[in-house]
């Protein structure tokens, strides 16, 4: 089992009232799964994804990730954990405008203290694998949305994570580009990468092996 959420609660206090963002969420994810989280706006999809990705905390409950108890870990350990095992893909790609495709891919490796030759090898490998060698010296603004998201996924994959978290990865793309991205996810999943995606689209959700529906922070 890759991760397990037990009775997760998350809330904010607003005007003396407690508003629940997540309410008693229980979830187990095994390696190799492809999960889609669905639900209307404000139902807590992204919050759940961020909790899983350890970018956001929670107020109550337990979270186990590969035998580690995330809820009792110190900040530093937690960030080491997600750095090593989790890759993120965003709706608006979040590539750095000042860096070329190659440099954007290289960035995570810099923070993981890889040596220069190793970085080069991994970047070259990734460019090759995603068929974007010709674009390696372009800046994000010079790419189409689909190509940018391709780079975003390549960046998420470059340090071989066990888990990819994708927050509406096709939300900014047209349907053809979106399809290509989903096909890519499917292929990655077949190669053994665990994927959790948030999506509004039934069609995209169908690519996954399991669908989780959220409503007002509660799994339904």
């Amino acid at each position, binding site marked *: 089992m890759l991760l397990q959420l037990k009775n997760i609660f998350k809330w904010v206090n607003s005007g003396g009232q407690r508003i629940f963002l997540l309410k008693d969420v229980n979830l187990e994810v095994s390696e190799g799964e492809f999960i889609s989280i669905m639900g209307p706006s404000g139902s807590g999809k992204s919050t759940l994804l*961020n909790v899983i990705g350890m*970018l*956001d905390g929670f107020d109550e409950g337990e979270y186990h990730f590969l035998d580690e108890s995330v809820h009792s870990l110190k900040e530093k350990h937690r*960030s080491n954990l*997600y*750095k090593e095992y989790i890759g*993120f893909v*965003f709706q608006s790609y*979040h*590539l*750095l*405008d*000042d*860096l070329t495709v190659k*440099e954007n891919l290289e*960035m*995570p490796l*810099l*923070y*993981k203290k890889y040596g220069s030759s190793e970085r080069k090898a991994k970047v070259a490998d990734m460019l090759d694998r995603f068929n974007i060698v010709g674009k390696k010296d372009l800046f994000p603004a010079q790419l189409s949305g689909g190509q940018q998201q391709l780079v975003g996924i390549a*960046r998420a994959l470059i*340090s071989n994570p066990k888990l990819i978290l994708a927050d509406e990865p096709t939300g900014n793309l047209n349907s053809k580009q979106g399809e290509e991205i989903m096909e890519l996810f499917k292929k990655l999943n077949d190669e053994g990468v665990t994927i959790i995606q948030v999506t509004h689209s039934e069609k995209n959700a169908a690519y996954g092996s399991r669908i989780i529906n959220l409503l007002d922070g509660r799994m339904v």
Partner: protein
Amino acid sequence: MLKNHIKLFLRNISRDKSTFFINLVGLTSSLTCVLLVFLWVKDEVVKDQFHANKEQLYQVFRHVPNGQGSLNTYTSNSSLMLKALQQEVPEVEQAVAIFRINGNAMLQTEDKKLASIGFFASEDYFKLFSIPLIEGNTNEVLRDVNSMAISKRMAENLFGQESFAIGKSLIVKNGEDGLEDVFTINGIFEIPKNSSENFDFVLSYKKFLQKRDSRDIHWGSNSSRVYALLKTGVGIESFNSKIKDFIKTKDSENQASVFFGLYADNYLKNRFVNGKRSGGRITYVILLSIVALFILTIACINFMNLSTARASKRIKEIGVKKVVGAERNSLVLQFLTESVLLAFFSMILAYLTVALILPWFSDVTGKQLEFPFNISLILLITGIAVVTGLVSGSYPAFYLTKFKAISVLKGKLPISHGNRLVRKGLVIFQFSISILLIVAVSVIYMQLDFIQSKNLGYNKDNIIAIERQDGLVNNMETFLQEARMIPGVVNASYMQGDMTNFSNSSSNHRWPGQSEESKKLTFRHAHVGPNFIETMGIEMKEGRSYVNEVPNNNSKIILNETAVKLMGLENPIGTVIDMRGPNREIIGVVKDFNIQSLYEEITPMALVCRSEWISTLLIKIKAGEEKKTITALTQLFEKFNPGLPFDFDFLDSQYEQLYLAEQRVASLSKYLAGLAILISCLGLFGLVTFTAQLRKREVSIRKVLGQTTSQAFIMLSSEFIKLVVAAMVVTLPIAYLLANDWLSDFAYRIPLRIWYFLGAGCAALLIAMFTVAGQSLLTANSSPAKALRQE
């Protein structure tokens, strides 16, 4: 990683050139200013610090009650002080007396003649002061009555080469002191660069004593300066309280007390107020250092403000980096790297700028500054660059990296109200300093202008001052007679010392009906020629002046108003004063006139008509005929002094020399104030440009809802104008207090008027308005549809 930081830094620059430019210009100019002030300060603080004995080397000062409730400080002492210190004061290891020759003396070889400055000094002079002898022996150089030492420069000028000079003879001539003797060159010295005193020859003090009229050698005649080396271990405080009444034990009539002051302090702490060292050049050293640091701070604030203002642009980068695994430390490091790099880059530019403008700066400051290129300087400027970078980078670095990645990536600008307040506070601070500097510069200028144009009680315009030298020594009267015949000459006379410095004083005068208090009165004392009062345009209050007087009739005296008032004389004319020598009858009273600088009140003054010890000839010429008259005077001068250049000064320019320090500081602070306001406005401009972008959407929505362009303009500009107004409110009271404090040093000062301050504030406001207006107008004018579509 560092390579990566640098790469990102460079790309950021190319993407946001205006911000980079603002930061670069600001930091470069402020660092330039820091470097220049540093060079200036360094030059000031090392003055006279080269003397090996500086910890023990003291000058002997006299404090004399001035009869007006406080003490005046004099540097002169009786020539008897030297022996007395040497023989009677066990704490004194060595002592030296010098007598300064007033003005220039003429050094004459068989074929050359040069005017130069020098003094008589007793034997141990070169032992006490570390002025190295290139030739000669410190023990012997001034031992013989006819021995002298000359500077290397003088030796080269007179004999071609310094080694030729030793053992040669020179005639030294000086009118005022009746000196015309042959001296043998026994030593050649070279004055170190950091000496505040500059002179070309030193004569044996024995000659001075020999020539001095023995009647003039007593404890009331203060001709010399005395320096002493105290033995190590002597506590100066207790020694000073012990030596205080030294003169009184010699001469019970004498009011003066003795005070030993460290010689090395003389340059920086050159002012005495009521017997205590009180500022002087040190004030300006501290002031300029603070101003330079302030200007650097303003530039650093620009950097901080622009960095945090542009946070929204950088914040995405920070969020993404955090998500892909960057730790906060590495991000902080990245930002600090950027700011340090920028500071470094600016420092290199500043260094080049300094190298370029150093000649100009030397001119403004009246110094000969050099820009040494050595390891310690490089370390220092590197240090300054690093510290500047760290200071200006620290706030954005720690502020921008503290947010959680997720809140940043959600696209929310985590810029809090508190942050905006900090930014506003910083802008207020910048403008406060700018306004303060503007006030300072205007007050200094107005005071200087006031001094220049103040009615001094005499008319300093169109008066030529000629030093009495060479041929004029014996033929002064003839020269003046012939000068009066020149059509453009209105009047002519002569005086002891010059109009900006009556250095002689006398005391212990007695007169009928004298009160106990007025026994202590000290008079400034000068010998003047016939027609002196008319030539100078001094007004008579009562009695008569020295018109067509025959000099050296020792029975008459003219006093000034202040003297008469303090002496308590109802009917001064005809009163006879016992001056511990001849009795003199008061024949006239002149209205008060200012000598010395306007730092000082008018003191009692006595004018005696004598032709001895005269150093300056004064010639009043007609306005509008200056050129013709000077040509005629030049011819006349050449007749009396063949081969000598006609060297003269206009009195008003001599007068300006008195305020040289103030004038230099004024012109320096003018540039500094300009720089401060420029850098502040650059920062303001950057800030306005940025917020204008941020508020484009807001303005669009408001315009859709019916706001007019002019309303939008006012809304946008007022945000910043308010800050400048706030700065005014904060600063003007402080500026008032500071200005008042500076002016209180002057006995004659301008009154402070409210509009000086409002004017400075409005000037800053106006400049700020111009800065803000352009961008605000652009934003206010933009089409709402376009701005909203971009959303």
